[in-house]
């Protein structure tokens, strides 16, 4: 008998535009000791399903049909007071964005005590000891000291461990993990997922892992349910899903998941795959960075964010800059795009040292147009009151010297180039989808014909199927316009797809660099090996689809 059974669950939300059905007849079962993965893109209803299960829907959400049963208890009709006893003791949840998931002004130890005492797992006198035990259970070293820490004093990975400790403190039988690793570094992601899976196995628990990452689900889950538009379109073992997806959407997701050996074209659905563009061989140097150092004034003395790095980017080359948060990759890209000044070092661009011009004067420098940037968060990098046309036109008005009429023509041309339908140009950012915003961001960056484009994780916030399309767009643009890329990312699979050359950074230093294939296949530095090992490895595909496309 299954521990949890969801039958024909329907959830709808009241919105200003009428009722929206978020979940439309989902049926799922979780057996004792099983780990079920629910995979889907944003808006697929995967999180809503779990909130409905916990009866934690927003006030405008309502379960409109179906049955939820947990160990013989009907979760749909049971009294709220019983439900509150079940939450935390029988069914627990962990969330994405762990730092926000913890009360910012309460010591983490006290937050765990709250849960322990709520479910009578501890008394006033032994709560502290029990809370420290719970912290030790999630392998937090020096748990005694961590007990008195506030969330803001801890790293993201540490916060997620606390959230896990909080969820598992009362030995629940079912754990629901809602995107537990989104926003965490790749090695932290691995550590957190390994920890969750180990603890589940140790305690004989069941779990539901909700994620947008099919590769991650495949690695850690016994069974995967793929959701789309509020329905489960396919369910099965990970290997089977990858080897022989039955539903077209699963096929699309499987294809779009970056993995070892895939080419960028193979990410696309088969009907969209065209021949890969021929890239010109990169020869002449475009950008050369020499002994770049950046020192910040920290609380306890100066902090070296970048410790004298040197590298080169050739004309038309695409270089990947890989590393985890705090490795100095963002600082480096901010210096290269001339938004920040280096402490010392040279940035030779076409032979001229850009570092000689201070960042605050560079906006008026004629070379400003030569180096442009595509930002990570497509939403936050636009003025919410500017239309797409206005946003793309801004650099043209400032840097190109084109007449008003010519600028409008150029904007239309750019929209065609990045595949943005022209009518969408008059929309505001909030009226565009994530993929469309990414296109606008790219159009804005290439508007003034730059020679060098810095791409700061441009696909990090996108669904995989959209990511596949945007990555292909970037490859096509590079072939068409001959722009050099510096692609900043933490995702090695994506970097491999897009880059010829890879630089791996750690603690402000370059630990390894070389041709992408060589670094990926035969990494020499232990850190690169660690990064590669941490990336989820989806099972092999049935047919090597990438060779057909190339």
């Amino acid at each position, binding site marked *: 008998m299954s521990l949890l059974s969801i039958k024909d669950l329907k959830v709808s939300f009241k919105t200003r535009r009428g009722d929206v059905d978020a979940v439309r007849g989902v049926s799922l079962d979780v057996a004792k000791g099983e780990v079920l993965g629910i995979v889907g893109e944003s808006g697929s209803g995967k999180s809503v399903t779990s909130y409905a299960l*916990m009866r*934690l829907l927003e*006030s405008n959400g309502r379960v409109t049909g179906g049955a939820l049963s947990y160990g013989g208890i009907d979760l749909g009709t049971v009294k709220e007071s019983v439900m*509150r*006893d*079940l*939450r*935390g*003791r029988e069914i*627990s*949840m962990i*969330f994405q*964005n762990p730092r*926000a*998931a*913890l*009360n*910012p*002004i*309460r010591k983490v130890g006290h937050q765990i005590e*709250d*849960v322990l005492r*709520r*479910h009578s797992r501890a008394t006033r006198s032994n709560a502290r000891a029990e809370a420290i035990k719970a912290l030790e259970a999630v392998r937090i070293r020096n748990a005694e000291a961590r007990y008195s820490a*506030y969330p*803001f004093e801890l790293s993201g990975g540490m916060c997620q461990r606390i*959230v896990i400790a*909080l*969820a598992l403190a009362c030995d629940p039988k079912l754990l629901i993990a809602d995107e537990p690793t989104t926003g965490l570094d790749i090695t932290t992601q691995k550590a957190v997922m390994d920890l969750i899976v180990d603890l589940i196995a140790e305690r004989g628990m069941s779990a539901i892992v909700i994620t947008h990452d099919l590769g991650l689900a495949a690695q850690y889950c016994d069974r995967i349910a793929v959701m789309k538009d509020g329905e489960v379109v396919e369910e099965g073992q990970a290997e089977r899903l990858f080897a022989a997806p039955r539903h077209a959407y699963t096929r699309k997701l499987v294809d779009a998941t970056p993995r070892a050996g895939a080419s960028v074209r193979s990410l696309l659905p088969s009907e969209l795959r065209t021949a890969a563009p021929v890239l010109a061989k990169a020869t002449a140097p475009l950008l050369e960075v020499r002994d770049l150092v950046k020192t910040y004034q920290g*609380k306890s003395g100066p902090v070296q964010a970048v410790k004298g790095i040197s590298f080169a980017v050739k004309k038309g080359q695409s270089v990947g800059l890989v590393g985890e948060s705090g490795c100095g990759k963002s600082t480096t890209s901010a210096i290269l795009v001339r938004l920040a000044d280096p402490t010392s070092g040279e940035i030779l661009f076409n032979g001229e040292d850009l570092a000689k011009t201070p960042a605050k004067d560079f906006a008026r420098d004629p070379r400003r147009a030569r180096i442009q940037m595509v930002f990570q968060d497509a939403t936050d990098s636009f003025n919410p009151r500017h239309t797409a046309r206005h946003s793309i036109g801004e650099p043209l008005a400032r840097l190109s010297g084109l007449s008003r009429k010519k600028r409008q023509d150029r904007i239309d041309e750019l929209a065609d180039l990045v595949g943005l339908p022209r009518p969408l140009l008059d929309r505001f950012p909030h009226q565009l989808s994530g993929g469309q915003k990414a296109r606008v961001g790219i159009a804005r960056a290439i508007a003034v014909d730059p020679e060098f484009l810095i791409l700061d994780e441009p696909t990090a916030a996108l669904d995989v199927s959209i990511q596949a399309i945007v990555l292909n767009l970037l490859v096509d643009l590079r072939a068409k316009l001959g722009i050099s890329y510096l692609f900043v990312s933490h995702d090695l699979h994506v970097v491999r797809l897009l880059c010829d050359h890879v630089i791996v950074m750690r603690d402000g230093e370059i630990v390894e660099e070389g041709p992408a294939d060589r670094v990926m296949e035969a990494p020499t530095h232990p850190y690169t090996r660690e990064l590669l090992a941490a990336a989820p490895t989806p099972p092999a595909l049935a047919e090597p689809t990438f060779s057909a496309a190339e």
Partner: protein
Amino acid sequence: MAGRLSTIGLRITHAIPVILGVVVVSFLLTRALPGDPAVYFAGAAANEQSIAEIRTALGLDKPLTEQFLVYAGDVLTGDLGNSLSTGQPVLEDLANRLPASLELTLTALLLSCSIAIPLGVLAATRPGSAVDHLCRVLVTAGVSLPTFFTGIVLIYVFYYLLGIAPSPLGRLDFIYIEPDHVTGFYLIDAAIAGDWETWIGALKQLVLPATTLALFTLAPLARMTRAAMLSALSSDYIRTARAAGLTEDKVLFTYAFRNALLPVITTLGMVFSFTLGANVLVEKVFAWPGIGSYAVEALVVSDYAAVQGFVLAMALLFVALNLVIDLTYTLIDPRIGFETK
């Protein structure tokens, strides 16, 4: 803890330049006031000579810098000069009148907090309900009705029509004897003296003006509480707390309310300082011998020593108030002490 103590020390040292600035500005402002105090106090029958004598007596014939040095020296020794209109030392006047204003303001704020905060919390937990609408109506009424208007309406209804309230003439009806001066707060002094009849008399006088002010200060507090509670309740950590099965009381008070308290305290501080300086109208309507009406009277007759004393006293009070608010903040929010280091 050492971090917190040094934060407190730092905040106090920050206040010093502010106070110095206030001393200079209050001095210059009173000198820039139109009208010549010497002419005013010489009276209608004065001639050139008597005006000049008074001017010399007041020290107004000396150059500004010298006047300022004399003033600064006096302030340092705690001498704020004599009020020209009351003839009393300004310090004594302030000591008599400041407690009257503080008693009124504090009572009003206590009253409005005890209504506004529960109302805001209730409105936030039940958006769209009757409580929420009541909150909205009260907030709108509170900001749109000026204090002198509510004051007069309250007097009309409760004193004139119903006859429940005592005559709106100051802090105590003439049939009672003022309690011995300890704190200057009649309610506290009467309680210390054990004179409960006077205590009730003082309370009766206090009810109407305090209600008037409370209605006015209720609006920003209720609105801020509601907004802060709403945003706290929709945050991720509340979801975590609910998912862990914590009771609704624990979620509401330990988790949401403590977080929502931060903006409410900021608003409270602003409302307090605003009310203390701006309740002249209420004091006038109820013939309340407070500091606001004192300052206005002094201003009208160019009583510069009194005005300077008032401005200085208010500035010190605001500095102290801000300090208290900052410290409350660091007590509630552990993140703050660290950022200022």
